[in-house]
């Protein structure tokens, strides 16, 4: 357990922290891309122990948060159809659509089931040949290989009563979009560790170069994050902008090749809308035409969806790092985890839920 002790050892944390303090001479804004990192930062109080020159802003890396309202409303419509078993990761069940959420559909008699893997959804399809089984396939590059595999396997086995409602997004185009915005404040990125486990970090090299931002693929442990920040600050202070991998134990430059192969067999890159942000060119994965019988959007005609976003919710600007959750007038008042107005208050990776849970109620 020596290794573990080292990783959690506050002495090491203090060493990294004092290194950061020694290095820094001016203010810097660093964005952690992944919502899992945001939660780790707030839970461990990393935001409170850093020198005041460092401002951490929270990125769009919360798959539940960026799944567009249209798709959620479509999920609600499909899940309400007779003869459909609608399967999903648990996080999606409480995400508010225009009028209700999946829990409500379930309480109204819809057959909505939580699964932990898309292969479980496929198994339900195998065992219920007289039903249509739909899996809500959302997420970033990390969940894409599993969701692709379920379609690939359905195809191999000739299972036709299985389909996926896909809302897959890709992280690098969103990182690029934020950097190219005139409102951008981000000067360095901590990139999402497990996204890089799948995709590697080659894609980040041209971004770092073009926008002159250091990009650090970073893990989720407190020490990982502190080290990621140190690697970013060193480059910022020296005027360098390279991709430097902090998360050595899980990330290789080329990523996971077998996973990438299945992703590109089943999906193709296309435009995708992000909730609160808008359409980002070439930022999504769409099911290829040859596998379109597994595309729930094509299989089920749920008619015209008219969406209705909450007027109060400012999740979009929060996801772009332009505001903090406690700057939202509804935060902790009309909007709480029990009564969420936006997806960022629901998800275990959402910034609003992190601020609520770890009680960051004002700027310190």
């Amino acid at each position: 357990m020596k290794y573990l002790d080292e990783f959690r050892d506050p002495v090491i944390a203090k060493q990294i922290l004092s290194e950061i303090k020694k290095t820094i001479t001016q203010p810097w804004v660093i964005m952690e891309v992944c919502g899992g990192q945001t939660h780790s930062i707030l839970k461990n109080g990393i935001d409170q122990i850093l020198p005041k020159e460092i401002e951490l802003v929270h990125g769009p890396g919360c798959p539940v948060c960026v799944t567009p309202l249209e798709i959620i409303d479509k999920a609600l419509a499909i899940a309400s159809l007779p003869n459909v078993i609608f399967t999903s990761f648990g996080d999606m069940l409480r995400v508010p659509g225009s009028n209700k959420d999946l829990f409500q559909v379930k309480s109204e008699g819809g057959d909505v089931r939580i699964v932990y893997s898309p292969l479980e959804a496929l198994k339900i399809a195998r065992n219920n040949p007289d039903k249509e089984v739909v899996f809500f396939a959302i997420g970033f590059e990390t969940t894409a290989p599993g969701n692709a595999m379920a379609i690939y396997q359905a195809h191999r086995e000739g299972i036709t009563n299985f389909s996926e409602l896909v809302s897959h997004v890709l992280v690098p185009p969103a990182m690029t979009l934020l950097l190219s915005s005139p409102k951008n404040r981000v000067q360095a990125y901590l990139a999402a560790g497990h996204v890089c486990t799948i995709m590697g970090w080659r894609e980040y090299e041209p971004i770092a170069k073009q926008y002159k931002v250091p990009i650090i693929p970073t893990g989720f442990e407190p020490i990982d994050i502190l080290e990621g920040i140190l690697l970013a600050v060193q480059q910022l202070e020296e005027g360098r902008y390279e991709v430097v991998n902090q998360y050595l134990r899980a990330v290789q430059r080329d990523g996971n090749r077998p996973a990438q192969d299945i992703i590109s067999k089943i999906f193709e890159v296309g435009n995708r809308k992000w909730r609160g942000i808008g359409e980002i060119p070439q930022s999504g994965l769409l099911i290829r035409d040859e596998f379109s019988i597994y595309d729930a959007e094509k299989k089920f005609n749920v008619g015209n969806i008219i969406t209705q976003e909450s007027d109060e919710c400012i999740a979009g600007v929060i996801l772009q790092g332009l505001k903090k959750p406690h700057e939202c007038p509804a935060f902790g008042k009309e909007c709480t985890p029990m009564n969420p107005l936006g997806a960022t208050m629901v998800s275990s990776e959402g910034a609003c839920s992190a601020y609520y849970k770890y009680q960051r109620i004002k700027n310190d």
Partner: protein
Amino acid sequence: MCLGIPGKVEKIFDENGLKMGNINYSGTINKACLEYVPEIKVGQYTVVHAGFGISIIDEEEAMKSYEAWEVLVEFAAKDGVDLYGNPLEESKDLIK
């Protein structure tokens, strides 16, 4: 959704043509697909994400992440939810 649990591969088998494994996560055994870590062997550790092994890691790494995971689970349980945000009671009857 992008966190992952490390577990030890206890058994490798074929299921419907896919390489699968029984994975031991600190005592709890669950099935995961190992198609994305084709070279993995019994006794090695893998980070499992949504039912799929996505990378092979060494034992010390795995031990470290266990602790992080347990802290997360405890923390979620304090709020009456599991790690995926499901209420603890409801997740029991929803998982078939």
